[in-house]
């Protein structure tokens, strides 16, 4: 009974937001004169083919990592907008290292992952240091660091001999050897593989949950986010916590480019996908920083991205999906706030209930409900 209510509590806000955004999208489609139901059913049909499902899983893997990176920061009110810069710098370095070193395959993959996490953390660490030592807002510094990262990447790939010509007129890091790739497994569709990194993303989600909810570090992190003053009084060193959280966020951000790098591209080129960081922010909001919520958010986002490919063929601008995604994020933020207020209010009423029956045996009833 209470479990069902809890689940309803969690689902109400996203469901409201998605329904609302469907209505908005339908209205826009209608304004364009498109057949709403046909468009939606085409998207559904295309999006549920085995090929699409595989692509969705792969895209969602990347989105998931990006959103977890952002969520770690959100948990203590730090806004890491620098995931873009962190993952691109990390993916380039990891690509270069994995392409140059000669090691037994799997070991090279492990090295690539560690290098990526280290570089991501390092780049986020710059913003953390600026915040703690100089009081510079991480919002500003991470945005600036994004631009600096882009500059560094272009320089390294174009001007140094770390970059080579991988394809005609495309410069990038040297191709990663066969054994170091995590190309994945053809589980759903015979022709397209699910990234090996899919499983790593699941592990990241589990670790994220465990660290957050079952360790002292996670408790300190959440306490700092809920009430910085109470956290300080409880003995949390807020500066140190800011640095740890930023480093952790950056380390996960470092992984964001790896599903594509080790699963499909095998080389970091100047055409490497560039904007996973911002998608991560949207999905972290949608998933309420919760590892399972983020997973659903990432899948939904990826589904919309992939299934929108069919729209051009239908004569409907594909950008309609971007509008839909935007509306989802905006309305989910509003919906969560409404649900949160409602929750606080209901709880107060429930306590009022227990107090009104002041002589009812409060303590035993609560033991029962546990």
């Amino acid at each position, binding site marked *: 009974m209470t479990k069902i209510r809890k689940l309803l509590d969690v689902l109400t806000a996203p469901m409201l937001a998605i329904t609302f955004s469907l209505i908005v999208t339908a209205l826009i489609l209608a304004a364009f004169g498109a057949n709403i139901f046909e468009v939606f059913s085409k998207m559904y049909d295309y999006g549920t083919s085995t090929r699409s499902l595989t692509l969705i899983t792969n895209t969602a893997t990347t989105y998931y990592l990006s959103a977890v990176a952002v969520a770690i920061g959100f948990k203590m009110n730090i806004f890491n907008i620098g995931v873009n810069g962190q993952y691109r710098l990390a993916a380039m370095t990891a690509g270069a290292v994995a392409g140059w070193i000669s090691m037994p395959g799997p070991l090279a993959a492990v090295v690539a992952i560690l290098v990526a996490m280290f570089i991501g953390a390092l780049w986020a660490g710059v913003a953390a240091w600026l915040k703690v030592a100089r009081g510079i807002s991480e919002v500003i510094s991470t945005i600036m660091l994004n631009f600096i990262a882009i500059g560094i990447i272009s320089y390294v790939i174009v001007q140094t001999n770390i970059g080579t010509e991988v394809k005609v007129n495309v410069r990038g890091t040297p191709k990663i050897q066969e054994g170091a790739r995590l190309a994945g497994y053809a589980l759903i569709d015979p022709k397209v593989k699910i990234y090996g990194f899919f499983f790593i993303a699941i592990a990241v989600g589990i670790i994220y949950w465990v660290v957050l*909810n*079952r*360790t*002292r*570090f*996670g*408790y*300190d992190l*959440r*306490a700092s986010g*809920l*009430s910085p*003053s*109470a956290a*300080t*009084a*409880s*003995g*949390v*060193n807020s500066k140190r916590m800011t640095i740890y959280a930023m480093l952790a966020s950056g380390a996960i951000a470092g992984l964001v480019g790896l599903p594509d790098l080790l699963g499909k591209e095998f080389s970091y080129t100047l055409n490497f996908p560039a904007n996973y960081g911002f998608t991560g922010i949207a999905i972290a909001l949608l998933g309420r920083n919760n590892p399972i919520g983020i997973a659903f958010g990432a899948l939904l986002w990826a589904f919309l991205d992939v299934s929108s490919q069919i729209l051009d063929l239908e004569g409907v601008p594909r950008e309609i999906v971007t509008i839909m995604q935007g509306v989802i994020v905006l309305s989910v933020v509003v919906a969560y706030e409404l649900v949160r207020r409602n*929750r*606080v209010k209901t*709880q*107060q*009423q*429930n*306590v*009022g*209930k*227990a*107090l*009104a*029956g*002041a*002589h009812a045996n*409060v*303590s035993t*009833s*609560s*033991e029962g*409900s*546990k």
Partner: protein
Amino acid sequence: MSETLNAVELVDICKRFPGVVANSNVNLKVRKGSAHAIVGENGAGKSTLMKILYGMQKADEGKILVDGKALVFESPSDAINVGVGMVHQHFMLADNLTVLENIILGSELKKGVKLDFAGAAKQVTDIAKRYRLELPLNEYVSELGVGDRQRIEILKVLYRGANILILDEPTAVLVPHEVDELFRALGDLKSEGITIIFISHKLDEVLEIADEITVMRAGTTVGSVNPKIQNVTAQDLAEMMVGSELPTPATTESTVTNNAVLVVNDLAVHTESGKAIVDHVSFKIHAGEIVGIAGVEGNGQSELLDALLGIVKSSGTVQFLEHNISNWPTRKRREHGIAYIPEDRQRQALLLEAPLWENRMLGHQTLPPNSKGFWLTPASAKSDTQRIVNEYDVRTPNIDVFASALSGGNQQKLIVGREMSGNPKLLIAAHPTRGVDVGAQAAIWDHLRAARAAGLAVLLISADLDELIGLSDSLKVILRGKFVADADPTTVTPQILGNAMTGAGAAA
């Protein structure tokens, strides 16, 4: 005819939450221009009733009459429109705005598209003058003490045109001379025709200020008395409230030992501009001793506590048991047995939007039963939370509700229970019974006395001078960051102490 004399009349108000009744057959008549007190235990339904009157909740049955007219409030703005304003127990002020900005926030005076600060300042000054509520309008709220903040809240409500003022535990945060000032201000308000309804736990004060007192118990009004005509004592009221006698904070016999637990030498805390807020104080607390610090709020008490906890930087030395802890971080101090009941529980002692059992961990997250090494141990933390809930009579349906769902008194009981857990050696407590009801207050005092007998050293700060004098083994008076006098709790009276606190006279 007599109806029109009532500023507020509540007739047979009922409020049900699913399955249970929070208010039933509540009847209340508040005469125009009177001060009407509502007293009752935590959970007696006072807050629900006030929320109904203030439009935050809607009654299921019954009528609300304001100035003789039956009204239905859908929201607090409906209430303020007919002149009903509320001053909350927890101030709702923006620290980084000035006093004037806070007062006009939400109902700004406009000149075209610009804010008319000059006009607003004039209006506010007029109101402040009329009711003798002078305030530094251009000062930032963060710079002001509790008494000033409360005056801002009152002024805020008056600025919105309230002529019926609801005050939720207005004296809970004030020291005697501030209370006197508040009561004088309330007297002025009354003489200007403003009706005052206030909720309080402090029965002596209620008797002093109120023209009429209504007692609530278990969701309903059990009676009204008129202290100006009838001869009622605090004991009478307490019995009406809980059917028991009023507890006293007095400790029986000295348990002071020779073992110094805390030795503070030349401790000073400075502001960024170099002003000493805590001005080179030295003192000792022994095992089994309660040292009380009396002072008007804002004379360095908060900073002294924060310095002892290592939350703010300080100079001087602090010796705790055999350790010199002067350079220890907060966590290490707490791990070694310093318990802390802070002044502002919502800011420093609670995670409002976290369940009670996670709040049980706060400040003790590195120790059993909350964690083992790197890992949290939620199961044992939960069962220990349940123990605290039972032992300290925290009124809550279960331990999974957010701390924000509890009333202030119950939050405080949880905090006291938490801080008394795990055998602390030293308790640093500010206002340990602030906002809790008579019964719970007695229970907290009992717990403190028992811990003291078992060798706990306590540094106590309290605005309740009876509590301070009753519990303490020795007293120090703090004024502008300095200890200006010592007092013997066996002979000193609240009046003498109050004078010493304001620098008016030396204590005994």
